């Protein structure tokens, strides 16, 4: 009986305090922070860093709970968000599979331009990595020679058919006129581990996924697929410098499900803007080779998404969906 009384008293207390919280929109229950990729990968590391900063800075009255939904190259997460339409307590950390997966899997029934854009936290970059023990590979030319010599025995690890790294791999196959065997793993962290364990021959990991191994001297980058050399990798040439026309980035944006209420959008946009401006986030951007010049949000981010979807449609038509899914 006593327990029941306590319970009712606390329920009453919650009921009384709730209207006060309504003055300015605040989450009323824990926020699901969906990650459309596996643990240890770039998106995962970023989401978990952001979640920690939210808690540390006390930006939300309710905790953000990171949940990985890597299934089907992010299809699982996209479908989940679609089904959460109108929900104000779910946000998602996205990557480029946000664009590619719905294009490749037509029957998924997800239109990402209907999702609620919140904030573009960063543009991530790609480098081509091999194990340091591959002494025969010192630059892009020797890499291409090695791949051509090995043929289909050359194994490239990635995070799944239709994921951005498979798009990049297909672009490289087209540019250098070779074919490789592409093996999907559940997340960029696992890909990195398999490169160091020599289960695969090369990968196009993001910097944050390889940094620890790069620093310990286990892996080496050959090329960066950026417009200019990054501060974190001053000695690594860009593909354009070497006369190869490949420049490819990964967007790292936070989005809500379709039909999120305007009050909630405002709350989340302010929250991620605060995070974006924090010294911790800007430091992380520099150390991990991310580009973070000003956070796109609202209509700007929506039109960014729309143009990216079109660009990826073209890209996929160019290399062929079959080249990406390996069929």
């Amino acid at each position: 009986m006593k327990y029941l009384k306590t319970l009712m008293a606390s329920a009453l207390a919650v009921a009384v305090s709730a209207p006060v919280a309504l003055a300015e929109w605040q989450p009323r229950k824990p926020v699901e922070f969906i990650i459309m990729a596996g643990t240890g990968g770039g998106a995962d590391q970023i989401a978990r860093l952001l979640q920690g900063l939210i808690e540390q800075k006390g930006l939300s009255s309710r905790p953000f709970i990171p949940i990985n939904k890597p299934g089907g190259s992010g299809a699982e997460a996209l479908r989940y968000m679609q089904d959460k339409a109108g929900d104000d307590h779910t946000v998602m950390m996205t990557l480029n599979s946000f664009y590619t997966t719905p294009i490749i899997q037509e029957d998924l029934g997800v239109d990402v331009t209907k999702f609620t854009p919140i904030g573009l936290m960063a543009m991530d970059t790609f480098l081509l990595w091999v194990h340091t023990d591959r002494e025969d590979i010192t630059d892009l030319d020797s890499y291409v020679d090695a791949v051509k010599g090995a043929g289909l025995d050359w194994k490239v690890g990635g995070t799944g058919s239709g994921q951005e790294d498979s798009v990049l791999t297909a672009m490289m196959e087209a540019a250098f006129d070779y074919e490789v065997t592409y093996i999907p793993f559940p997340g960029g962290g696992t890909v990195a581990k398999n490169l160091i364990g020599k289960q695969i021959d090369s990968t196009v990991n993001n910097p944050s996924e390889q940094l620890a191994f790069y620093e310990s001297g286990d892996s080496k980058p050959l090329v960066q697929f950026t417009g200019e050399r990054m501060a974190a990798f001053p000695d690594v040439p860009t593909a354009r410098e070497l006369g190869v026309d490949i420049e490819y980035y990964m967007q790292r944006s936070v989005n809500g499900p379709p039909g999120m209420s305007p009050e909630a959008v405002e709350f989340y946009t302010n929250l991620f803007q605060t995070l974006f401006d924090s010294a911790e986030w800007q430091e992380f951007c520099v150390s991990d080779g991310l580009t973070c010049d000003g956070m796109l949000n609202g209509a700007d981010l929506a039109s960014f998404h729309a143009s990216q979807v079109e660009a990826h449609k073209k890209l996929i038509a160019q290399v062929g969906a079959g080249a990406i899914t390996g069929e």
Partner: protein
Amino acid sequence: MLDIATLLGAGLLQAFEPLNLMMIFVGCLAGLFIGAMPGLGSVNGVAILLPVTFLVPPTAAIIFLAALYYGAMYGGAVSSITLGIPGASTAVATVFDGRPMAQQGKADQALTAAAVASFIGGTISVVLFTLFAPPLAVFALKFGPQEEFALMVLAFATFIGLGGDDIPKTIFSILLGLVMAAVGFDIISGQPRMIFFDFVELQRGIGFLVLAIGIYGIGEMLWTLENTKGDVRIHAVTSTWKSFKKNLSHVREYLPTTALGSALGFFVGTLPAAGATPASLMSYGLAKTFARDPDSFGKGNVSGVAAPEAANNAASTGSMLPMITLGIPGSPTTAILLGGMIIWGLRPGPLLFTDRPDFVWGLIGSMYVANFVTVALNLALIPLFVRVLAMPFTILTPIIFILCFVGVFATTDRMFDVWLMLLLGLGGYLMRKLNYPVAPAVLAIVLGPLAERSLRQSLISSRGDVMTFFERPISLTCMLLALALMIYPIWLGIRRRRAGSASGTG
């Protein structure tokens, strides 16, 4: 060697600093209760309490979270044994024998065994961690898709080769589990498959806890109700100092399985992507295969409680290894710990051991202390836990049903999964009635996706050549062991039958 001793000494001293010691104590206690609540596992516990750690230095923070993690591993066994519902996914195998023991009025003995086995598992693995962390990390790197698949085959072999059970029925049960594991998105192509009746919710797949809670919570409860017509003798257990000493004296019975389970658990835990749940199931399977009385497993054998508990605690320590040395989490919980470490300004990876020895060795030191604290807390709380069983059956049963509903809804946040759990519970009850073993189905739904992924990765990389599993030394060894494990019980059966007929004629 001397190096390690000095570093470990410093680490232990650090663990004994008042703040850190308090962190260990509070973490273990909180973990114990979080683990014991169905639906709340170490993952949720660590995620929810992560912010608390921003108030203290990084070393104290990781110590707190690690203690919470162990505490939850111990705690999971509590509801598995007393209520028959797995408190966390890692404690499913503990239900197999823990529940029957509680029904026989031996809940205190089961709880003691779980606590002691967890302690041994935790301690053995932290010793292994201390001595061999860097070389083991290198070994874990040798594990490619081929080795992972071979290990999965080994795990299945331990379950097919179960002596007492009907082998065709066991295989059927495994296949049923595999079919359920295949529901959802295809791992490689990302296409949805086996979406029965076009339920969109099935795209996410059938959650393992949904199945486990359905089968053990609902299915078992229906079975008990039918068998007893609700007229159940109350299994009150008096927990006295004398019974406690008696329970402790049973340790010798399950010491070998505990030691084996600890080593296995630690090893499986160190492999990225495996984690404590497969480890505990494999340990249970091995314990049963090599037991002198395999028939008594599933009916309340104390080794059946000790084996998975030793393994899941050992695995929780083991899964810290790839996180610290490679920056790759070995389990969902360590993934959250990893996030914490990045915020504290630490970058896990090959250099952490040399860059921040104070942090790494403080953590290792705390693991030793946390094990002592948790076993002491757990043993002290057994009288409290067994009180649950003193409740009349007519009150306890509805509570268990409610906990099943809440547990499933809390983990997945979808009513669809609650209905699915009821359906699977009904299925589990029918299987039980028709005398099909349900444990292999549970094993298959856990290991199925892991096995499928590694099988397909291996075959893509070998371009369809199955010989790839027999060309690599580690994978070949696992495959041969699996074969031996499958044949052993059959051979044992034949020998027994011969001995039986010989004595019959003689």
